[in-house]
């Protein structure tokens, strides 16, 4: 009995003092650092696959997206803030696709934390979302990005060597889509 207690005590102490992470949650990836290695399934819709510039059907990594910048929104169809923000993100998508010189270099994707594919579809249909949305039903990506509150926007620069750097990581609205686009272009040094 005493040994068991000792073992438990050591376990608790090691968690407390050495920061052993038993919760499975990582720190929120911050600006200047790399975005965690996540893989996503290739979209079934041909248009979305083409938009991301993917070939083949194997799960892909962010740095495989044919873009210089990837705007990744962590959202949930159940999140009222994300619902309110959806038209604004659509506007950002339109702003990007209309701006000469960046259209093919900036791509937007959404990851639905804890949402099933069905729930993602409801969200997509409700707001007529044209960029690819992915289901993260098991919260595995959500955990890797520090269990952020939603919506959280990451802007990830894909470097020439295949590595990546976060140039923006913030919870909440992107506010004005044009200003946001100008800001991330500036921050990322996109020419």
């Amino acid at each position, binding site marked *: 009995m*005493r040994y068991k207690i000792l073992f438990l005590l050591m376990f608790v102490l090691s968690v407390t003092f050495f920061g052993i992470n038993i*919760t499975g949650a990582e720190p929120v990836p911050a600006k200047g650092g790399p975005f965690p290695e996540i893989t996503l399934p290739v979209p079934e819709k041909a248009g979305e696959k083409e938009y991301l510039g993917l070939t083949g059907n194997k799960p892909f990594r962010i740095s495989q997206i044919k873009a210089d910048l990837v705007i990744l929104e962590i959202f949930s169809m*159940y*999140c009222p803030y994300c*619902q309110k923000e959806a038209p604004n993100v659509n506007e950002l998508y339109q702003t990007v696709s209309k701006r000469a010189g960046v259209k093919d270099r900036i791509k937007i994707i959404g990851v639905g934390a804890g949402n099933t594919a069905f729930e993602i579809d*409801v969200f997509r249909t409700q707001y007529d979302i044209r960029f690819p949305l992915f289901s993260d039903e098991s919260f595995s990506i959500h955990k890797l990005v520090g269990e952020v*509150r939603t919506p959280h926007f990451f802007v990830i620069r894909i470097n020439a060597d295949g590595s990546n750097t976060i140039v923006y990581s913030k919870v909440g609205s992107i506010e004005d889509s044009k200003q946001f686009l100008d800001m991330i272009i500036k921050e990322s040094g996109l020419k």
Partner: protein
Amino acid sequence: MADKHYLKALLGIIAVLFVFSTAHSASEQFKGKIYSPGILKPVDSKTRLKAGMKAPDFALPSLSGEKISLGQHRGKKNVVISFVPAAWTPVCSDQWPGYNIAKGIFDKNNAILLGISVDNIPTLYAWTKEMGDLWFPVLSDFYPHGAVSKKYGVLRSDGVSERALFVIDKRGIIRYIDVHDINKRPALEDLAKELEKLEK
């Protein structure tokens, strides 16, 4: 004997640490206003109701001030009752907003949704205001406390209701019951599938 107490205390500490690993995403909408009760016993009641039985009637005050009964929909609409445990808690705050953008699924199946919680009207008002305009009525089962939840066999021992869904057809017969793990949100497609089965 003393050992047992230590063990209990340690298990308690470990349980608290694990609480932070609950998988749910919180909307920025509610910011720091959400109270986390931690991981709760998944189900803490036992309903005697079964699919095929007549749904117990009730009338409860709603946020709009109107009293809403189950009976008023008989012969007209299929009814989904969504009991949620408590306002301002993590999973509940991220359940009704989802239904709020899934109206099409209810309409298609000639169904309405009644949201019920044991919270009082002012609390429900403040809480649901954060969700935007809800298309479905929100009913308060506050007084006599949890009476309807109890009637449906979903009142937990601490006075809140289970996270439960009841699908009731136009004739007032229960077609589907999901007394869900309180810590998790039921997937929308499971409800959608049940609605598809109903006579419209």
